[in-house]
């Protein structure tokens, strides 16, 4: 038992300040992304979430060039992209996806340029890699207040908008009939999405931000029948994967003689994927059992 404890929680894990910061920032980002992710998946806006993540790389690399907090870069570029996407694509889902794709294409061009400048400017690939794939142990403790504020903002927005947002995500016409100002709710949610993706990009990187946004939410939606449960399960999967990943990444430092640890992001994304596969397995076994138990179904089958 104690051998297992020591194998899992390697020396210095609990006393390392970088681990502390990573655990707190990682958990807040995971909760924000996973909860926003549930609405994103329900609304069919996964592509927009993905695009905001990818475009975050432009903001992150610009922030690296200017020497400012990457969070500012992620939120700034996200806000610009969100405004562009909603102005261009305001005529239904297909139109929205096309506009997202167009903005994504244009933004990635800028990203390419900025990442190139980052690499040549600092003559290492470090900044570029950490913008794209994150480096959780390198998150500066000074970003903590901003991360707490951003998470609080999300909690306030999603808490206040919960029912109108849920109703307009299920069916915007039903919401409009009940007097919900659907356009306002949609715009507010896009703002929430920008902040959630920015937090996610800060921890697992711009490219992998979408995994933290969509993965836990998709898994929770497979498992949960009600929106409240889906949100709780998504948050639990997000935080669980992040904390487990921090432990494994810290351990991985001791795995090889050369002491080159593996990045936290790799473990986060892998664990989220494993959780998804397990949920998929559980729900298919569950529905098979239900089919066997339901006499009306077996009668029509036979």
């Amino acid at each position: 038992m104690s051998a297992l404890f020591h194998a899992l929680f390697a020396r210095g894990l609990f006393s390392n300040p970088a681990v502390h910061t990573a655990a707190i920032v990682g958990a807040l980002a995971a909760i924000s992304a996973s909860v926003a992710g549930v609405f994103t998946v329900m609304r069919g806006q996964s592509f927009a979430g993905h695009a905001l993540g990818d475009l975050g790389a432009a903001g992150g690399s610009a922030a690296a060039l200017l020497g400012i907090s990457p969070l500012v870069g992620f939120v700034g570029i996200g806000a610009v992209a969100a405004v562009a996407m909603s102005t261009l694509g305001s005529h239904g889902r297909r139109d929205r996806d096309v506009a997202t794709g167009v903005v994504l294409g244009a933004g990635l061009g800028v990203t390419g340029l900025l990442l190139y400048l980052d690499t040549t400017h600092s003559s290492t690939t470090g900044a570029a890699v950490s913008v794209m794939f994150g480096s959780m142990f390198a998150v500066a403790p000074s970003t903590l207040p901003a991360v707490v504020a951003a998470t609080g903002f999300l909690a306030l927005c999603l808490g206040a908008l919960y029912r109108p947002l849920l109703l307009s995500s299920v069916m915007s016409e039903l919401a409009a009939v009940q007097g919900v100002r659907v356009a306002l709710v949609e715009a507010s949610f896009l703002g929430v999405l920008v902040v959630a993706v920015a937090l996610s990009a800060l921890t697992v990187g711009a490219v992998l931000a979408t995994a933290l946004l969509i993965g836990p939410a998709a898994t929770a939606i497979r498992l949960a029948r009600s929106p409240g449960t889906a949100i709780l399960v998504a948050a639990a999967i997000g935080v669980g994967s992040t904390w487990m990943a921090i432990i494994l990444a810290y351990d991985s430092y001791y795995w090889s003689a050369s002491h080159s640890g593996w990045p936290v992001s790799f473990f986060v994304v892998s664990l989220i994927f494993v959780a998804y596969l397990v949920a998929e397995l559980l729900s298919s076994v569950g529905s098979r059992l239900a089919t066997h138990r339901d006499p009306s179904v077996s009668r029509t089958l036979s």
Partner: protein
Amino acid sequence: MKRALTSGATPVLQVEELTVVLAGRVVLDKVSFALTRGSVTGLIGPNGAGKTTLLRAILGFERPRSGAVRHLGIAKRATARIGYVPQKVAFDPDLPLRARDLVGLGLDGSHLGFALPSRRRRTLIEAALEAVGASGFADKRVGRLSGGEQQRVLIAHAVIRHPELLLLDEPLANLDLRSEREIVDLVAGLARERKIAALVSTHDVNPLLGAMDNVIYLARGRAASGGVDEVITTEVLSSLYGRHVDVLRVHGRFVVSAASGDLLVDASTTSQAEPREQ
């Protein structure tokens, strides 16, 4: 012809000379009718006749070029007073939303914040589910219910706040004959018991026969309204369609057929022949 619709108490809904133009096309051309409490009115017309457009104009989603929509005499949309079931609702099977959650959103979905669990809220939701016969699948995800079950839940969502007007857009599409009958009876029962004016759109007049008090027939943007036997006639429909159509009554069912015989302007002859999937 309008007499049957306007007689009685203050109409719940008055549509006066309503003209709606979409993308440069006159979709509704001076449509007028009125609905009274406790009545079921069929909104009949072939695909593209403008049924959905009319319902959306009543809801205030489409701005009329001219004419007026009055709710209880007031030319303004009073949201609490309208229950609405849209056409073709496609719920994802995995959508994490139980039937009871959707009905709860009908009660207070426009309010800010979370719904605090209360005995009163629960009782109202249970009562609405009970009224439409949905108690048995209240805890299932809406996306995994059959078409008929989904219609029941959507109707519960629409009537939980006791509206005076209930608009249903093609609620019988994709239903088998039995579910079709059950939904028609449910809507007629709710309209009578709760004194709701129900407006039910369908491309086929037959499922509503016996349950509806009045009919509004839409074709080429124009409407004829009144009692079923006044409107569904060779003369009235020929004038609406602008060419000769024959209205036949076979075993109590209407068959509307173009004179040339090659074009059915109403699906009623074919739709009942083959069993439809859930």
